[in-house]
């Protein structure tokens, strides 16, 4: 049994959390204390087993009234996959126009998420 201290990142409250963990036979969260909401408890359980993050970046737009369109993953992805996904984002090019919510990349690096636009980019006048 192992005690682990974490800062919950679900919301800006940033609760300081303690989790009791069993490592064998399989990684398992036995008890969570310090969370002030249910979402936090679920996050801690996930964080111990497989930490997940939403990432935000930007993609080059061709013929846009703006050089870049800001993007994010539409759902949290495994922390360990971030740089693989970033690599795909960095090399992607899209054509204007782009609308908020447009799905610009599907399942980058095989990760079950989509990269969506977070701003509108019009066509270069």
């Amino acid at each position, binding site marked *: 049994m192992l005690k682990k201290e*974490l*800062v*919950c*990142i*679900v*919301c*800006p*409250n*940033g*609760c*300081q959390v303690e989790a009791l963990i069993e490592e064998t036979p399989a990684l398992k969260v036995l008890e969570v204390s310090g969370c*002030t909401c249910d979402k936090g408890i679920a996050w801690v359980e996930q964080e111990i087993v497989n*930490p997940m*993050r*939403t*990432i*935000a*970046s*930007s993609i*080059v737009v061709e013929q846009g009234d703006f*050089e*870049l369109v*800001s*993007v*994010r993953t539409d759902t949290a992805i495994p*922390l360990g996959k*971030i*740089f693989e996904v*970033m690599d795909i984002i*960095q090399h992607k090019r899209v054509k204007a126009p782009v609308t*908020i919510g447009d799905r610009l990349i599907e399942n980058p690096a095989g990760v079950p998420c989509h990269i969506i636009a*977070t*701003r*509108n980019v019009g066509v270069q006048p």
Partner: protein
Amino acid sequence: MQVIKRDLVIIGGGPAGLAAAISARKNGLKDILLIERDKILGGILNQCIHDGFGLHTFREALTGPEYAQRYIDEFHKLGIEVMLETIVLSLDNNRQISVSSKEGFVKIQAGAVILSMGCRERTAGAISLPGTRPSGVYTAGAAQNFINLQNKQIGNRVVILGSGDIGLIMARRMTLEGATVAAVFELLPTPSGLARNVQQCLNDYDIPLFLSTSVFELHGTDRLTGVTVASVDETFQMIESTKRFVPCDTLLLSVGLIPENELSLGAGVNLEATTSGATVDDTYMTSVPGIFSCGNVLHVHDLVDHVSEEAALVGQSAVRYVTQKTVRDSASIPIEAKQDVRYVLPQTVSGKTDFTVSLRVTRPMANGVVMIKDKGRKVAGKKIVRLHPAEMIRVKVKAKNIETAEKLEVSVQC
């Protein structure tokens, strides 16, 4: 020169100005004008492409541009008038505004004015950072603009001074883009930014955060070549024996934000020393009748959600001022920051309506109670597990509890 009239003029089209305009319209006011100096609405949110906005307002983790767009869409749907690429040159205490744009000079007589100009970043000059003046030294917000809006690679090896939220966000952003962030240095013994940002922006990427440590010299005559850092004692004096050189080509400064109140000063608005923002009553009216203030120009907020909420209240107050020609209630009750409280807002209240006190504490504390008292009698209180200077605290006060109050004092009891 052309002089036009508007019932309400809002200066600044960032989150505060947008929310104030929308709220004013929804409260029945028709003749509203919003003035924005940029080409687009949304203010600084446009460059804050990370997520985490709107958790309170929309129960979703939106990015800055997405959060802004929701307000921009609503603003346009309501058909509110806006002047873009227009700068306010001056505002006087009779609410006359001079503006300039490509179309020319215009004077506007406003029935009421809402100040929502936001804030600016403290600079290397403002903190008297010693050493040379090479290129490669940026405020975190300027760096964010260059990277997120202008597609510029600003550096390879980065040091960040100050652990404000923008600095932490930029540490992650630059790491994701392939730069090496050598370290974040913070003069204070605690991080200035939110705990979740320390976790997801630094810890996730093994970026070290050195507390009670600061940059003491910049090196390099052309481009930055490195910085001298050292630890400080309790009085923030450098500990000579801890001095060390950290090579880097880029230094980002995240050392604080200052409300942009130059226009407010021109109108004779009284400012408060701690917040560098206006002193306001519970309608968020400043010392000059008919001039209101909200958002980061009033006090630097932790979350945009709080800005929007505050601005909506101010929009409503401004409408009441315009339509009912309300004058300030004569019996104003002062509110003062006491034990462990850095500042409180508003600074005076009428005592006739319920209101919310916003405050920040001076130091991190655990299991505290924010107490609001009138001559030792408790009128409101809030239990809080963790109190941190980075976080704004809000406490509701009922008017019926302060009917006889002369002065309210806000303190923290642990």
